[in-house]
């Protein structure tokens, strides 16, 4: 653990060093009228300015979301995961997924232990990629609401379909999760 931390720290210093050299390069480019360098600087600072208008707000929204909405309340509802309700609740549950597939698979496995159907579980695995709320907040902030609405209305039905297809196929085959 300790070793891992110091490795991380080293990496961070290398990155900071790189950023320092980068800023120096931009400053020198302006002094020497080096056009590609100036263009780089322009690009960097316009992007940065754009980000500063968005990022703090997006992060506050994510913070509020984490404080006010609890995953446990959603999991409670998964007891009655028969029928359409199950799909609805895993869609909501997927919204809470942090860390992508790294947390989605262990959760899927534990849902299986609670006897959720394979169809519902594979729908969850699909949803976990596409409806994560923090990610979606960033998406809306940077690419706009219309983009997100189109993306969600295309991908949610398709991944629901995929979940049902894979799930029912595997049900027939008597599939079980490998021990992770």
């Amino acid at each position, binding site marked *: 653990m300790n070793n891992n931390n110091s490795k991380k720290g080293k990496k961070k210093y290398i990155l900071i060093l790189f950023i320092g050299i980068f800023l120096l390069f931009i400053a020198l480019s302006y002094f020497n009228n080096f056009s590609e*360098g100036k263009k780089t600087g322009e690009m960097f600072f316009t992007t*940065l300015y754009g980000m500063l208008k968005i990022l703090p707000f997006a992060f506050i*929204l*994510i913070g509020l979301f984490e404080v*006010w909405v609890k995953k446990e309340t959603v999991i409670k509802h998964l007891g009655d995961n028969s029928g359409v309700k199950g799909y609805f609740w895993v869609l909501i549950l997927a919204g809470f997924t942090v860390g992508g597939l790294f947390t989605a698979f262990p959760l899927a496995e534990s849902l299986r232990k609670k006897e959720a159907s394979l169809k519902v579980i594979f729908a969850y695995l699909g949803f976990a990629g596409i409806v994560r709320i923090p990610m979606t907040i960033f998406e809306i902030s940077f*690419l706009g609401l219309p*983009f997100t609405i189109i993306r969600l209305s*295309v991908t949610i039905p398709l991944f629901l379909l995929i979940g049902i297809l894979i799930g029912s196929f595997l049900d027939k085959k008597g599939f079980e*999760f490998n021990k992770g």
Partner: protein
Amino acid sequence: MNIGLWILTTVLLLLSFIKDKKKTILAGKKAGKKMLKMSVIFFFVMALFSLALAFMPPELLNDYIGQKSGLKGIFIALGFGSISVMPGFIAFPLGATLRAQGVPYYIIGAFTISLMTIGFVTFPLEKKFLGIKVAVIRNFLSLIVTIIAAIIIKMVFGE
């Protein structure tokens, strides 16, 4: 677009504050911590990205992922999205920057959706849980969903 975000955040923040001061402060702390944690890698990626965009001839970007790149562009974006792993706070600002350079939404969509759904890097993990066959099928179907979604985005935005 930004104004909507500002208003929404301010209103929710006020509501939260009225309802529970402690929770709201905790939310603010969480937000600050997350921002601090991502700042170094964020600056790094942005620096790298602006270097790449400034030194790359514009025709190159146009040819491969520009307005007229079509299916070729979708596959290039999809390839990058499948093999990379990056958090949303990097991927979407990158998307917005590309957008400002004239890259169409459907290309950005192909990149971000494949990033979300197809995992070369996470494949070993997926294989461990699902077995190799199911993992391959799942990723292949995700690839098809990405292509369909990109084409629909292209149609809706009239690109």
